[in-house]
C-alpha cells in the first residue's frame, strides 16, 4: 500500500467532480487529498487525487475512472519526475511575548509568509510539498494551532512532458 498521485483530466461540467469522487468512495478507495480547478483548456478541468492502494487496486481504480464518460484521461504520475505543491493556511496562537518571535523565525525558515497578524494569533501561508507542510505543522503544534486549511496536492510533470488528452 502506498500513496499514488493521479492526475485526472475531465470535462468541465456540472456534476463531474461528484461522479469522480463518488466512484472512488463507492469502490472503497480512501481519498487522501483531492484538488480540482480549471486548466489550460477552458472546457476541461484537472483533478489531482492522492489515493492509497497497492498496484492492483490503483490499476483497477484508474480503469474504473476511465470508464466515466466525462473523464478524458487518467495518469498515475507517482513514479514520474514531477513537481507537486500544496498550499496551507495556518492560524497559530501567538500571545504577545516571546512565542511570536519564535513563530516568525520558524516561518522564515520554511519560507512561509505571515499574511495576517491578530492580537492573539498569526496567520501563516505556506507553499510546498506535502512533507514540508507536515513538518511545519508539527513544529507549530506546540504553540497551538487554532485553525488549519490545506488545498490538497496539485502536481505537474517536469520538462516538456504533459498529461493531456490524446486528441
Amino acid at each position, binding site marked *: 500500500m502506498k500513496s499514488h498521485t493521479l492526475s485526472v483530466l475531465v470535462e468541465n461540467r456540472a456534476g463531474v467532480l461528484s461522479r469522480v469522487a463518488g466512484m472512488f468512495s463507492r469502490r472503497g478507495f480512501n481519498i487522501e487529498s483531492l484538488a480540482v480547478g480549471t486548466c489550460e483548456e477552458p472546457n476541461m478541468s484537472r483533478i489531482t487525487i492522492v489515493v492509497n492502494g497497492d498496484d492492483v487496486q490503483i490499476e483497477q481504480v484508474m*480503469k474504473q475512472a476511465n*470508464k*466515466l*464518460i*466525462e473523464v478524458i484521461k487518467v495518469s498515475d504520475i507517482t513514479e514520474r519526475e514531477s513537481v507537486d505543491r500544496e498550499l496551507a493556511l495556518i492560524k497559530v496562537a501567538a500571545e504577545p511575548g516571546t512565542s511570536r518571535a519564535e513563530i516568525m523565525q520558524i516561518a522564515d525558515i520554511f519560507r512561509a509568509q505571515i499574511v495576517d497578524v491578530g492580537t492573539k494569533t498569526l496567520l501563516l501561508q505556506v507553499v510546498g510539498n506535502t512533507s514540508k507542510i507536515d513538518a511545519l505543522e508539527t513544529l507549530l503544534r506546540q504553540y497551538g494551532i487554532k485553525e488549519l486549511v490545506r488545498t490538497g496536492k496539485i502536481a505537474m510533470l517536469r520538462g516538456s512532458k504533459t498529461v493531456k488528452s490524446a486528441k
Partner: protein
Amino acid sequence: MKTGAKILIEALQREGVDTIFGYPGGSVLPIYDELYDSSIRHILVRHEQAAAHAADGYARASGRVGVCLATSGPGACNLVTGIATAYMDSVPVVALTGQVPTGMLGNDAFQESDITGITMPVTKHNYLVKNGADLAGVIREAFYVAGTGRPGPVLVDLPKDVTTNQVTAERPLPPEICLRGYQPTYQGHVRQIDKALSLIAEAARPVIYAGGGVVLSNASAELVAFAERAAIPVTTTLMGLGCVPCDHPLNLGMLGMHGTPAANYAITECDLLLAVGVRFDDRVTGKIEAFAPNATIVHIDIDPAEIGKNKPVDVPIVGDVRMVLQAMLERMQKHGETNGWRTRVADWKKRYPIGFPDDDNLRPQYIIRQLSDILKGEGIVVSEVGQNQMWTALHYCFTKPRTWLTSGGLGTMGYGFPAAIGAHYARPDMPVVDIAGDGSFQMNIQELGTVAQYDIPVKVVVLNNMYLGMVRQWQELFYDRRYSYTELPPVDFVKIAQAYGIDGIRVEEKEAVREALETALTTDGPFVLDFRIEREENVFPMAPAGAAINEMIGVHRK
C-alpha cells in the same frame, strides 16, 4: 418553434423507438400530451419498476435499446431497482424521468428527487437537461452511450419547463457522435490475439468460459465456430446460456455455484482458460484461488476494467467479443490435439448428468423439462430469482441467444414478469413464458393488470412451493432447518388471475403438467399456471458459498 416535448418525441423517433413503457405524472404531462398522437406505442404499466424491467426485457430480447418513462420524485425512484438490474447485466436502456422545473431544482419542491445523484452508481451515464436546445443532442448521445461499448442504462432527467417551453434555436445534430472521454475499443490487439492462439494450440486441457458478453455482442455463431475448429469444450455462465446450443456435444452446461459437475471439474483441471465476455463473478468462481488454479488465462472483454479485476490474467484482449473471435478464426493456424481431454470431459458429462428423482411427485424440474420439450427452443423464457431461476437454467434446453432473460448480476425478484412483457413487444412472433416462484411473482404481480389491459400473451408458470424457496434451501442446509420468515401462506394464483380477467389453471399432479402447459401456450392472451410443487425440493448440485466449485454437494450419478 416546437416545445421541448415535441423535440423529445421526434428525437426518440429518430432513434427508431417504437415502444415505451411508462407511467404518467405531473411533471411528464407535456411528454404524455405529445405521446398521445405520436406513432410511438406507450404501454401503461402498474408500477414504474415494471416499466424499467420491461424496457430491459425488450432490450435483451431484441438487442436494441429499451425505453422507459416515469414522472419525477416517486416515479423516478421506483425505476431505480430496474435500472440497477440493467446496469449489473449490461443492458442498454434509456430511462426518461420528469423533473421539477429548473427554477425549483434543489428546493425540495413537491415530487422532487435528485435522480441523477441517486442513479449515478447504477447508470453508465446520466444527464440533467437544463435547456431545450440541448434536448435532441442529449437524446442522441444517450442512445449512443447506452448501446455502444459495454452497454448499460442511461438516464435522462427532464425538468418540466424544458419540455413545456418553446425552443427558439434548435441546435443542428452533429453528423456523428464523438465523445473524447468515451472511445470504446472494438478491434482486439493482433499481437495479443496471436499470443492467445499459440497458447490455445499448445494447451492440453483447454476450456472456454463464455458469458453474457457473447450474447450482448451477438457473437454466438463465432463462438460456436471457434470452439468447433479448436475442439474446445465450452461452459457458459447463467448469462451466457443459449449462446451455445444446450445439446451441442462440446457444451458442458453452466458453471459455478449451481453449475454442472462436468463444467466445474473441467474448469478446475484445465490448463488454459479462454474467458469470453465474462466477469469472474463470485457466484461463478466460488473460492477464487481454487478457480482454474492451473490455467493460463486469456480474457476477451470490451471493458478493460473487467480484465484482471478478480483474477490475474495472462493474456488480456480488449475488444468486442464478436470482432475478436472473428479475427481469431481468421488467424488460426492449426488446432490443438485435445482428444484425451475431450474424452475425459465427455465422460464427466455422461457420468454426472443433471438429474432429479423420477417419481410421481410434482417436481419443478419435470415441469421445466416438459416446457422445454414443447417449445423446442422456439420461445423466450424469462425467470424470476431463486430456485425457479436455477432449475430453469439447469433443466431447460436453450438453443439460441436472446431467448433466456434473467436477472443475473443483481438477482432481482420481480424481474421476470415485467421483463416478459418487454420481451413480447421485442419479439411478438415468439411465445414468452415467465417461470416464477410464488415469492417473486408477488413482487410485481400487479402487472397482471397490464397484460390484461393490452392482452399481452405472456404465460406465467408459477412453481408454487409456498416458501421463499432458495432462502429456505440455505436455511435447510446451513441454518439447521430454522425456517425464519421464509414460509408463505398459500395463494390461489388462479383466482388472482381471474380477478384481472385472466385465465389460469392450478396443477397438483404430474400427469396434468403436459396438458396444462399446452393449454396455456395455445390459449390466446395471458395465462397463469399455478403448479403446487414439492415444497422442499432443492437445487442440486450446489457448491456452498466460499467453497471451491468442484466441491459440490448433491451430485447426481449415473
